[in-house]
């Protein structure tokens, strides 16, 4: 970033990002309250399409917060990758293993759980 750019105001961009984040949050809440049956009760990629939508919207929000509020977009590529790629790789790795093991335990434990008395 050059010296001249540092002094120009980014207020317009900030309000635009705020508008995007607000719209996404409102969409999430509306979907969470109405829970349309076509999205909620069907299956897609091992879960409901609604859950996939929530996950994608959350990642979009995370992108906007990191890139424009935390100014990751203005950092050097090396710093950006050192932080973002490390986090993405380790989190995906951890989550994948934990969720696979969790659902395996459910497969084994579920049939053994007593639900009638």
């Amino acid at each position: 970033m050059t010296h001249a750019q540092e002094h120009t105001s980014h207020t317009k961009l900030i309000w635009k990002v705020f508008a995007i984040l607000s719209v996404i949050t409102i969409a999430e809440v509306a979907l969470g309250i109405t829970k349309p049956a076509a999205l909620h009760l069907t299956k897609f990629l091992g879960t409901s399409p609604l859950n996939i939508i929530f996950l994608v919207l959350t990642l979009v929000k995370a992108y906007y917060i990191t890139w424009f509020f935390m100014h990751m977009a203005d950092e050097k590529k090396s710093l950006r990758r050192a932080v973002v790629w490390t986090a993405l790789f380790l989190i995906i790795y951890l989550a994948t293993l934990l969720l696979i093991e969790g659902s395996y335990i459910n497969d084994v434990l579920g049939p053994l759980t007593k639900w009638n008395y």
Partner: protein
Amino acid sequence: MEVTIPAENNGTSWNGGNNNPLGASYGKMMMWFFILSDALTFSGFLGAYGFMRFKFHDSWPIADEVFTHFPFLHGVHAPMYYVAIMTFILIFSSVTMVLAVDAGHQMNKKKVTFYMLLTIVGGAIFLGSQAWEWKNFINGTYGAVKLNDGKIIQFVDASGEQITLESFVKSQHSGRTQLDRSKGVWFMKEAELPPFTLNEVVESFKANPAISIRTELINSETKTKTIIPHNQALGFLNEAKTVVKGANLRENEYGKTLFANFFFFITGFHGFHVLSGVIINTIVFFNVIVGTYERRGHYEMVEKVGLYWHFVDLVWVFVFTFFYLV
């Protein structure tokens, strides 16, 4: 070997020279790596939560039935609205924070002061909202019965809507009074007694054929909890152990105790981050007022504390998704 150190470096570079590895000042880069490690800590917690959810995914509490309170609307079923407002408060305080950083780039002390103040106020409101959410969760809504093996049984009316214990249980005034310090020896006290005894609940249930119970088991077709007809319910109530009202680290009227454990731990850990963010913001706010950064010639400290503050917002985005939406 001689090392030359320039007199003025203002803390923007590593060693007083012009070397800035990764193009960032020492403080900013270290803040990024702290955030990275903190993000991994939160991922560990949320990952453990996900593990338990997958393990019990056929009997996990449904968030819409747990967090239903809204200020001034008593007894109204209002899922999600309150936490949506909390999310907005936090996002908005992120906006004022980034506006403060922006004003700092223009060396506009007045604007930085104003936006920092708004950010602190937003953080404080969020903390208060979080406390209210905890209060409702701890006090509970309906009350339930815990079985010997730890499963939770809730009561529903003929239409399948959950009902409170107060709405059908007739007190027989046979329960004992709670032992506290004023009644016994000074060191003797016990945990708060549930509002009704187990016997009162079971007797009132038998006397009222219109109501029935529901178990924690989720019907995978309708994604609702399984309702047991009244005539089969006594088999469950014969196994009953205690009456549960509210949630804490030992029992949870909404279902799995693990849900309460993770909720308290993860939102508590996040709330602690918000609290420390508010404190650090306040310190920086006063530094802005007394002109520390004006004299230093740059507002990088506002940027660094801003990074932390946005990170707290970022974590909330994920906590919101995994506790309230998914």
